[in-house]
């Protein structure tokens, strides 16, 4: 009997782990999904925008502990908001200086943003040093929540989950309910037509890109609770992120969500029953195999081209 309840507890925690990996993947991918899915732009520097968020959090954390220790428990919210705006602003600049000149050449965007990621990595190294840094987390983010004796639900996992849900909901509202979202979708469907009905497509592009980068910044801030902050931390995420978006079919947010979910569950289960390395190989292979059988991704409408 005791064995059974323990088994239940582990199953519950493992289930939570699957959800938590799902949220991490989704959070990483959201910004990219907006940029890639809505604009067709491949941003290889996406990981570095995550890192901007992480370093922002680190700076806010250090400043808080030196100048306003009383504010310690709450600095994280400020860090998230700042991360959004800083990453967004840099994204805005990048769109203005680079991306806007490459819209006709998606593969070249991919290469140019790769160059950008090198520059950004070295930038982080010059500013913050080669070593990894660690933001001090407020106590309420540490430790776990125990619904029963045997179950530990990590609080940072809950936090990431909540943040993911909130962000996803906001993005859904923005893209599918707001006037701005309508303009974005109109621009993506038919640029010329959108322009002729008075939409400033350049501005829409710029804002979309900035939004995607801002979301990446928020993700980066959130990841300081579960991962490392260093100049090359972003490159750890980039391939997984792309796979999630591509696997999801690139054009719909729903697809991205579904694909993050399936990859996360597969990974989490395989990790539990095999081992870390093998799980990674199996998951990636499965994704590639499925992409070969269904190159358009999991979710994409059949349309007359």
């Amino acid at each position, binding site marked *: 009997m005791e064995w059974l309840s323990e088994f239940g507890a582990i199953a519950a925690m493992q289930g939570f782990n699957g959800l938590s990996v799902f949220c991490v993947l989704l959070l990483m991918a959201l910004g990219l999904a907006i940029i890639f899915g809505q604009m067709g732009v491949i941003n290889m520097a996406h990981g570095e925008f995550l890192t901007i968020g992480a370093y922002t959090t680190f700076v806010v954390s250090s400043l808080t502990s030196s100048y306003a220790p009383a504010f310690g428990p709450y600095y994280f919210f400020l860090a998230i908001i700042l991360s959004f705006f800083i990453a967004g602003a840099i994204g805005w600049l990048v769109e203005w200086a680079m991306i806007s000149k490459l819209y006709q050449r998606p593969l070249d965007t991919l290469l140019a943003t790769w*160059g950008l990621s090198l520059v950004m990595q070295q930038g982080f190294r010059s500013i913050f040093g080669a070593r990894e840094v660690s933001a001090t987390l407020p106590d309420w983010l540490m430790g776990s929540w125990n619904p029963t004796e045997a179950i530990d639900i990590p609080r940072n996992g809950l936090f990431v989950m909540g943040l993911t849900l909130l962000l996803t909901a906001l993005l859904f509202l923005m893209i599918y309910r707001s006037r701005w979202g309508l303009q974005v979708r109109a621009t993506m469907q038919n640029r010329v037509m959108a322009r002729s009905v008075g939409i400033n497509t350049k501005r829409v592009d710029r804002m979309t890109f900035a939004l995607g980068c801002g979301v990446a910044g928020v993700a980066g801030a959130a990841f300081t609770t579960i991962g490392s902050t260093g100049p090359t931390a972003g490159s750890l995420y980039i391939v997984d992120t792309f796979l999630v978006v591509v696997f999801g079919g690139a054009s719909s947010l729903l697809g991205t969500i579904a694909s993050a979910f399936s990859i996360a569950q597969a990974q989490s289960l395989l990790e539990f029953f095999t081992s870390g390395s093998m799980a990674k190989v199996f998951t990636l292979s499965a994704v590639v195999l499925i992409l070969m059988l269904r190159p358009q991704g999991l979710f994409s409408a059949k349309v007359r081209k």
Partner: protein
Amino acid sequence: MKNAYESLLGGKHGAIGLALLAALILVVFPLALDAFRLNMVGKYLTYAFVAVGLVLCWGYGGILSLGQGIFFGLGGYCMAMFLKLEASDPESTKIQSTPGIPDFMDWNQITELPLFWEPFHSLSFTLIAVVAVPVLLALVIGIAMFKRRVGDVYFSIVTQAIALILTVLIIGQQGLTGGVNGITDLRTLKGWDIRTDEAKLILYFVSAVLLLGCILIARFIVASKLGRLLLAMRDKEERVRFSGYDVASFKIFVFCVGAAFAGIGGAMFTLQVGFMSPSFVGIVPSIEMVIFAAVGGRLSLLGAVYGALLVNFGKTYFSESFPELWLYLMGGLFIVVVMYFPNGLAGLWDSHGKRWLARLQRKPQVAAAPKPVAVAPSKRPTPELETTP
């Protein structure tokens, strides 16, 4: 005869260009550089194999593979396995618990040579495998992707994922592959010590000649109807398809050719550097190889070689002198080339160099003080180097 001249050498201009390159790598470098620097150039030339293949795939075929490191690595590993077996004869491995197998296997408690290593006792098998293994994998990937019309960007990302998977696999199976350290401490090829300066010089020349051979093959492909079809496909894929061509098979073909070149490059790399490791299979080296092709000019076979040489020289020089600045330069170079000089060095040469040369020929007296060409870099590509995809 005329035909061969036209298609292999690309007429007068092509022949001169090729002769210049051949003179540079076969005569100038060996004379001007010491053994140490020449060995470095030899290493760069092995990357040029990949870059030449990328010109075919990317420049002509419009297929941007971000996983050429896979094929470079496979070719290199095939060669390394042969050399490692030769270095692991029972005599020199007698302190191991199982003599006669590679040292890293012994450390991993493997007591018998794995089956897939066995054929690599044979040099002829190895030489075939260096080309065949990469080509077979390219064929499988190509059939799966192109027959199903996977788009450019998806293709790039999927190749990247495959590069990642292969790296994780090689590192994870260290008993069979040497893991993250790779296959190291390679010594002799059929008893011939590959570590001496003379051996390195000979290997350099082998590498250079093979590279020129690959360029000739690539030239032949580009000059044939197939080359024209590739360009046509890149711009008007539907039209080509509805003219009765199986578009996928052409893409698969160039992808396989690119893989074969990369495999040869990898094998020559192993021979000259003396080891092979998973760090050449992954995403970063794969993208760097694209940089070489981009800098040289994605539509120029010779440019790819210059690109590989130049970027690597720059890398060595700047990383020695300004390690802090190196990544800024590399990243910046890449951004600028892609954004403003999509045809790379070759494009610059066509828009500026040739004009300058023509002026030089017409008015030799002006050549003493050539005025800087005050024209903004022409974004309009010349006819034979037609446009960015």
